[in-house]
């Protein structure tokens, strides 16, 4: 089912939890809702579920306007952050509950519940109560319960946040597998960027209730539309340098040292040479340039740290600290001056006044 949010806004007394959100989610895709705590992810999900009524805007499921449709008539399944299993019912009864409410005959209901349990691989636990299950097993029960009515939309609110690191990894692949097997449109809330990047077809990044960017994860990483997106994604985080742009719209003036650096493309729109800009470069997009004739940013090495396969180089340009991931066979020492060049097409330039990316 295709989902459309048109100017969706949700206000509580004096907080605007979601602010004019516009998103179209294609049928059968998995979309992650990503953002810092309190940015309105759960609120958005609750509006999709019909548990909250949007203050403004229209919500379409397919061609149907669903603003006023009750949760049980929306053909959705939802997994809550705390799973919200019925503690007094066995696993089987938990999975059968939605069917029982829909007055499906008992025999058929049990059959479908068992089928669903097999899909999420908990068919050996059917007689247990939720309290006798591990976190990962409870989560599978919650997924089975959400899917048993064959909903058209699956909503998952940070379903992995209670699990340990390994189980998380396992379960997120599991969710992706189930999602693709069933082919169901899925919205997955998380505040873990790695989780969002790894399982989604598209990511919606939010901040303060506003949508920041809605695109495939790799695009979002490579071409952030604004400084917040660039800073939110990536670990170690993107390097930012306060710079100015010359009138030729291509020459960057670096801080403190007043060195210059040529951009490989022109900025998209005219920029006054007085405007404050931020040059953004991801640590892995730097490399050390030994050719004296080539362009680069000359920095002083502060420290080199071995992290797994690579070396993490801490450097300083005037007052600004930088991080670069460099290959381990480069021998540099503290105090050395090195020239860092930027991989082509990997430079970002943000307008500090509104955060907009001026290059992509």
């Amino acid at each position, binding site marked *: 089912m295709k989902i459309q949010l048109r100017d969706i806004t949700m206000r509580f007394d004096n907080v605007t939890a979601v602010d004019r959100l516009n998103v179209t989610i294609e049928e059968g895709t998995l979309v992650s809702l990503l953002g810092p705590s309190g940015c309105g992810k759960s609120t958005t999900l*609750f509006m999709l579920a019909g548990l909250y009524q949007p203050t403004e805007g229209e919500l379409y499921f397919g061609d149907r306007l669903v603003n006023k449709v009750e949760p049980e008539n929306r053909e959705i399944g939802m997994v809550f952050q*705390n799973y*919200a299993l019925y*503690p*007094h019912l066995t696993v089987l009864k938990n999975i059968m509950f939605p069917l029982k409410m829909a007055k499906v005959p008992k025999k058929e209901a049990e059959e479908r519940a068992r089928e669903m349990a097999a899909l999420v691989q908990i068919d050996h636990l059917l007689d247990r109560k939720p309290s006798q299950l591990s976190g990962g097993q409870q989560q599978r029960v919650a997924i089975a319960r959400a899917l048993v009515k064959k909903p058209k939309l699956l909503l998952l609110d940070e379903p992995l946040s209670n699990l340990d690191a390994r189980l998380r990894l396992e379960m997120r692949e599991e969710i992706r597998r189930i999602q693709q097997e069933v082919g169901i449109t899925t919205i997955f809330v998380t505040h873990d960027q790695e989780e969002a990047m790894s399982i989604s077809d598209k990511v919606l990044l939010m901040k303060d209730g506003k949508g920041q960017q809605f695109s495939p994860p790799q695009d979002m990483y490579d071409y952030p539309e604004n400084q917040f997106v660039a800073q939110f994604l990536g670990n170690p985080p993107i390097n930012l340098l306060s710079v100015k742009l010359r009138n030729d719209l291509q020459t960057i003036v670096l801080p403190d040292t007043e060195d210059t650096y040529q951009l490989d493309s022109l900025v998209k729109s005219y920029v006054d040479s007085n405007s404050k800009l931020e040059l953004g470069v991801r640590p892995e997009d730097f490399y050390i340039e030994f050719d004296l004739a080539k362009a680069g940013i000359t920095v002083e090495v502060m420290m080199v740290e071995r992290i797994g396969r690579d070396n993490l180089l801490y450097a300083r340009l005037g007052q600004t600290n930088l991080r670069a991931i460099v290959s381990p066979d480069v021998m540099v020492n503290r105090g050395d001056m090195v020239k860092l060049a930027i991989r082509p097409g990997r430079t970002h330039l943000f307008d500090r006044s509104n955060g907009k990316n001026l290059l992509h």
Partner: protein
Amino acid sequence: MQKEALSKGFIYLLLILGSLLMLLPFIWMISTSLKAANEVMIMPPKWIPTDIQWGNYIKAWFSAPFAMYSVNSVIVLVASTIGELITTILAAYAFSRINFYGRDIIFSILLGTMMVPGEVLLIPNFVTLSNLGWIDHYQALIVPWLASVFSIFLLRQFFLSIPKELSFAAKIDGCSDFRFLWSVMVPLAKPALITIAILKAIGSWNAFMWPLIVTSSENMRTLPVGLIAFSTDTGTKYELLMAASSMIILPMIILYIVLQKYIMEGVARAGIKG
């Protein structure tokens, strides 16, 4: 190590003394119920009767229409306990889950009524009931006890501890508010509800003042009121009174023992994390 054992011993000693203090009246009651009439009042008191008089129990039972009193007591107990459970469940749900105008103020006022001593209400309640023409009917024994603020408070707190996601989940599953209350909240609240029911049952079974005031005819009396039969103009027959009392409290003791494991069960709420 030794110090620990010593302090543990001290705690046990205190606990044993405490329970003895609680138990003594019971032991005295049973002891008296088995004495011959001439042994009841002797000084110094005798804990163990010289001649055990089982006959006291039979005599006591037939001194007054206790069978009828029992039926009345059971009717009042069952009706008021079930009634109170129903009103408590509905009110606690409303006060914990439904947003309506003035909810918190109404609840505060309700809590405030707990400060009013029961005795103050005897006369106004009596007047109300006599205006309704209910005096000396079952209604008078039951209706004033169909709701308890304390129980509502207890259950409301319990309901508040059940995460709201559970009701969200139920809503998505197509479960109405009412159905959610009965098929999810109530089963979850079983320990709290059993505690409320036991308190109510004991209170109702032992009630004396109110049934005494609102009943006048023999066939409306409840068991505790029936005990008056042993106080006559010529004095009180303590051995029979105690025998009857022992019989009366027996069902409550059994009820308590049977249900206590549910009270102790605690609140099993796994399946809900976070």
